[in-house]
């Protein structure tokens, strides 16, 4: 019904696949970092409430905020290149909660620093900072889920005409809650895996280290089990045309979904048997597969309305080359800076 209001698109400088690959790659990194941050924060709050707060795993939260935000930029950029006309429209519909993300994120960022820096001087304030940060991250995730579901369903855009003031959450969307829960559980699972990795490289008592790694890998495993149920719930709340894409509708999509299940089964084995390195690789692969599945699901939703291949390519390669060069130089510079940490003497001379 609302197909006719879908905005017209702008041109792109190079073939759309460049942006699709860049989107998947950068979103994958952002997802890993975001899961470490959100899952890690949730687990830290749990530790806090159960009196088991352990600073080694939680001290990196402010840095994780910085890196998550930073790595959130490129996927947000590339998704706007491919799907901007849909994304801007849905953003306007929920403009108020969407824009509130900015001040809330700033406060969450400060909250994370308060949590870390005030832990000894003002423990109550510190705990408050962490709880605020975690709740803020939950809010941000919820609004992103709202926006992303609205962006791929122009048939729901009629809500704009009833309320053009930017207060439309996509609460009537059947996939909203299972989707949100699915992502939260994923964050918890990968967050637990992240904590296990932190403990792996921490200088601490070997026994305690192993115990913490085991504990967190078990969390990873148990949440993966729950994900089977929640993921299936999420899957089946999708429109027929979408979920059937992953049930033979499309060979590639089906293969990806099956790969995801298989990886999940392997994750269960590695996490319950305490194999961190294997779990780490499998967890990373699972996130990558799920990112691809997510892209395929978006494509299935929009199948009749829009495909990125429809975008007009004006064929301007030089900016892409410039970016790739700068990217390589940037990576080298970061490598150099990290090396400086390890190379330089421990104290000033």
């Amino acid at each position, binding site marked *: 019904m609302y197909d006719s209001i879908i905005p017209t698109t702008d041109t792109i400088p190079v073939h759309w696949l460049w*942006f699709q690959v860049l989107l998947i790659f950068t979103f994958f990194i952002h997802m890993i970092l975001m899961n470490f941050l959100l899952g890690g924060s949730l687990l830290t709050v749990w530790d806090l409430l159960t009196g088991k707060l352990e600073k080694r795993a939680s001290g990196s939260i402010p840095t994780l905020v*910085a890196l998550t935000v930073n790595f959130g*930029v490129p996927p947000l*950029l590339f998704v706007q290149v491919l799907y*901007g006309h849909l994304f801007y429209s849905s953003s306007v519909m929920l403009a108020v909660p969407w*824009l509130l993300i900015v001040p809330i994120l700033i406060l969450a960022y400060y909250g994370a620093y308060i949590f870390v820096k005030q832990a000894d001087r003002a423990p109550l304030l510190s705990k408050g900072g962490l709880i605020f940060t975690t709740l803020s991250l939950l809010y941000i995730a919820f609004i992103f889920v709202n926006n992303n579901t609205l962006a791929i369903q122009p048939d729901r855009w009629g809500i704009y005409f009833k309320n053009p*003031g930017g207060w439309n959450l996509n609460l009537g969307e059947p996939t909203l809650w299972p989707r949100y829960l699915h992502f939260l559980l994923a964050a918890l699972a990968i967050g637990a895996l992240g904590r296990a990795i932190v403990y792996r490289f921490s200088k601490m008592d070997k026994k305690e280290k192993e115990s913490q790694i085991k504990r967190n890998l078990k969390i990873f495993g148990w949440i993966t089990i729950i994900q089977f149920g929640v993921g299936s719930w999420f899957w089946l709340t999708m429109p027929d045309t979408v979920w059937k894409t992953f049930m033979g509708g499309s060979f590639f999509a089906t293969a990806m979904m099956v790969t995801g299940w298989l990886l999940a089964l392997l994750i269960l084995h590695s996490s319950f048997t305490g194999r961190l390195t294997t779990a780490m690789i499998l967890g990373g692969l699972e996130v990558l597969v799920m990112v691809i599945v997510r892209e395929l699901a978006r494509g299935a939703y929009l199948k009749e309305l829009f495909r990125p291949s429809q975008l007009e390519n004006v064929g301007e390669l030089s900016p892409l080359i410039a*970016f790739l060069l700068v990217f390589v130089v940037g990576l080298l510079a970061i490598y150099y800076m990290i090396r400086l940490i390890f190379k330089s003497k421990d*104290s000033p001379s």
Partner: protein
Amino acid sequence: MNYPVWYLPQLGGGLLIAIIAVLHVVIAHLAVGGGLFLVLTERRAVLTKNSALLEYVRKHTWFFLLLTMVFGGVSGVGIWFIIALVNPAATSSLIHIFVFGWAIEWVFFIGEIVALLIYHYRFGKMDHKSHMALGWLYFIFAWLSLFTINGILGFMLTPGKWIETGNFWHGFLNPSFLPSLIFRTCIALIFAGVFGLVTGAWLKERENRRTVFRLCARWMYIPLLILVFTGIYYTRVISTESFENLFHYNRESTPFITLIIVSSILLFGLGLFTLVKTSQTVQKIGALMLVLICFGWMAGFEYMREIARKPFVLYGHMYSTGITPAQMESVNSEGFLAQAKWTEVKEVTEDNMEEAGAEIFRLQCMACHTIDGYNGVLNKSGQLTERGLEALLTGMGKVNSYMPPFAGTGLEKRAVAAYIFKELQGKSIPSAVGYVAESLPLEIPAFDPDTSLYVLLAWNDLGMHSISDNEKYFSFLPPANTLNAQLFKRGALPEVVTSGIVMEYTVEEEFQHPEYHSMFWQYDEAIFGADLPEGTGLMGKGVNGTMEPHGSVFAAHKIPVVPYMDNKTYNPYPVFTITAKDESTGELLAVTKAVAPTSTEMGCRNCHEGGWAWNDVSGMADLTAINILKAHDRFNGTTLLADAENGEPKLCQSCHADPAVMAPGKPDVLNFSTAIHGFHANYLEGMDQEACNMCHPSHPDGKTNCFRGRHSQVGVGCTECHGTLEDHALGLLANQSDKMASARLARGLEPVFAASKEEIKPRMPWLMEPDCRSCHTNYNIFEDGFDGTAFNRWVPGFEALYRNRTDNHGVMCSACHGSTHAVYGAYNNYGLQRDNQQPLQYQGLAGTIGTHGQCMVCHTVEMTSNGHHRNMVNRDPLPVLVE
């Protein structure tokens, strides 16, 4: 048009962008300059072995990280969010054109973050050389980040060759790239100094504070000189139109220019306190005040950039409405609503005007305007009527190119005007009450062709004189009517009598006291510099008096007659009785009557609100005059309203030259007729003589209907002689092309009666008017060469005007044919024959004197040859139109 609009009727998206942008941009500049500040100060501390200074750098780094990385970083994303919400079309363009520019900037951003985090967390835990290397890397990444963003920001204001080529590098390395980069780098260094004071002021040791303050002062003042010169360079690379919008024609920019000047003075004036010994409390307060001033300064700068970019959001590529210039033609022809995506109203009908207007306003205007909040349309439109609002929409993007042109059909324009006027302002148009002029009785003097020795012909020079009629606020047309008369001694070869007679005039009884009805004598000294006796006009004439000889004509200039009768009747056609007497004996030689048409039916109120001043019939109301002065003051930076309210109203021609009132004006200002027609033509385009009728008292259904001569009865309208308002204005503007405003007024006008602007001949108002012989070639009615218009065929000068021309015998054209705009056979609403009294007096029919072979009016023998001009005799007489 392409995207939904976030409906913010009070707050407005523009204000949200401004708040987030100013907060972010200050911190973003600090992030660049502050990086250099950190590493250079660290270097200084290491070289001078000043551990206290090094400790200061360590603490400042933490403050700097919290401010720039946390607030600066996320608020940068905030700008992205807010511009995408308020102007998604422009954001989408920027994203798609510069996707790899943004991607490159992201690489620099992550380089910044990694460097700063390590710099902070490893402060004091690394050797100085490695630590400073990180500091340098941070600064380099931060400056490169500025370098990249600067290219995209510069593109928004000066896209340069990109407009033609669409090439990324042409857009990125645009004309303002370099000045902007240097300018912003200087700002970054200055802000580094200012924010350095903040942490410096909190240092406990007095000596440390002094060291830091002196250091920061250098950061503030050294870049200042470069900043000033680069600022000038910056203003030179923007387009002429941007420059004019910023510094000349747009009053909206004044507060921001003031803000930047005042905050600059405060910043660098108050900054001097850093060099003075003061208490720590004063230092703390001073440092925080300087930070606040930085925000004010940045607000001024960013707003000036925004104004310079108007009416575009991406200069030359996309208007601030989100519509591109390339889309305008189809939107204007097919309709905005038909092409807009996010509306359920797809067309305007007479039944949904306000609803459709609301939709168009929401989708097209709300990118910048709110309803009644920031930049609210309610505050800005209250001085205009519904018709005035329609005119305003027509003129958008023309005279003042600050606003983009309205996109849509004429009906859609009307719908927006109706929405603003009726729904938002809650006003309504008073139901039109038909005005029926009273047919007033006439007493035509007697004339006996057998015994009368003289024929006296009298006429008004222009056929209508308008009075602006609110001298309390201004005047451009005082009560000043001119009557001319010629006395002919009848005979075989009649003579024009020019001496030995006294020519007197007197007005009807009810018009004897113009001073009772006009403010002219209250403000004559302020406006005209002459304290005139009440009832006396600018040339010393009253409504009764004598006429002086001027060659073959007797004339009384500037008779102050007004159209208000003492019995409260509006009558724009006062009848004067003119008598010719023998100078020596006083014997009455001849008597006749003529109207001195004079109207106060000024159409200003049609757009500028206010209604009628005089008995709800005519005259300019105070509110109308106030609104006009407000508009003039806003456009031109004058203080006319305040002057008037202080008892010093002005004559418009004191600045605007005008041959009609012999005013020299000011050299750089357009003459009056050019200014008023040139300006308003931009707002009343696409109309035929309806445009004339909007302002002049010429509307057929009006209270004056001044265009009443024979032409009006045979389908010849205003435009057949003068061209459309656009043509008329372009001729006048062409004559004033040496003045700056001329091009600005002419650029939005398209000629109608000429193929191009260049074809229109320059014309001096009042002195060069359409030549009657353009149509009446060979003095006939329809001849070869007649193409239905006299436009662009001007008489060469004053002497050649119809009202000044004579035949070879000194007989004035007007004497026989009647006044301009009221040539005999005129049709007067206030009594059919009111203008035709002399033809009726002398020949019993309302045509040209002598028509239908009536040469006997003056000649006592039958005439068989063309005495006055060709084609007088031996032709088919014209039908008498008014009987």
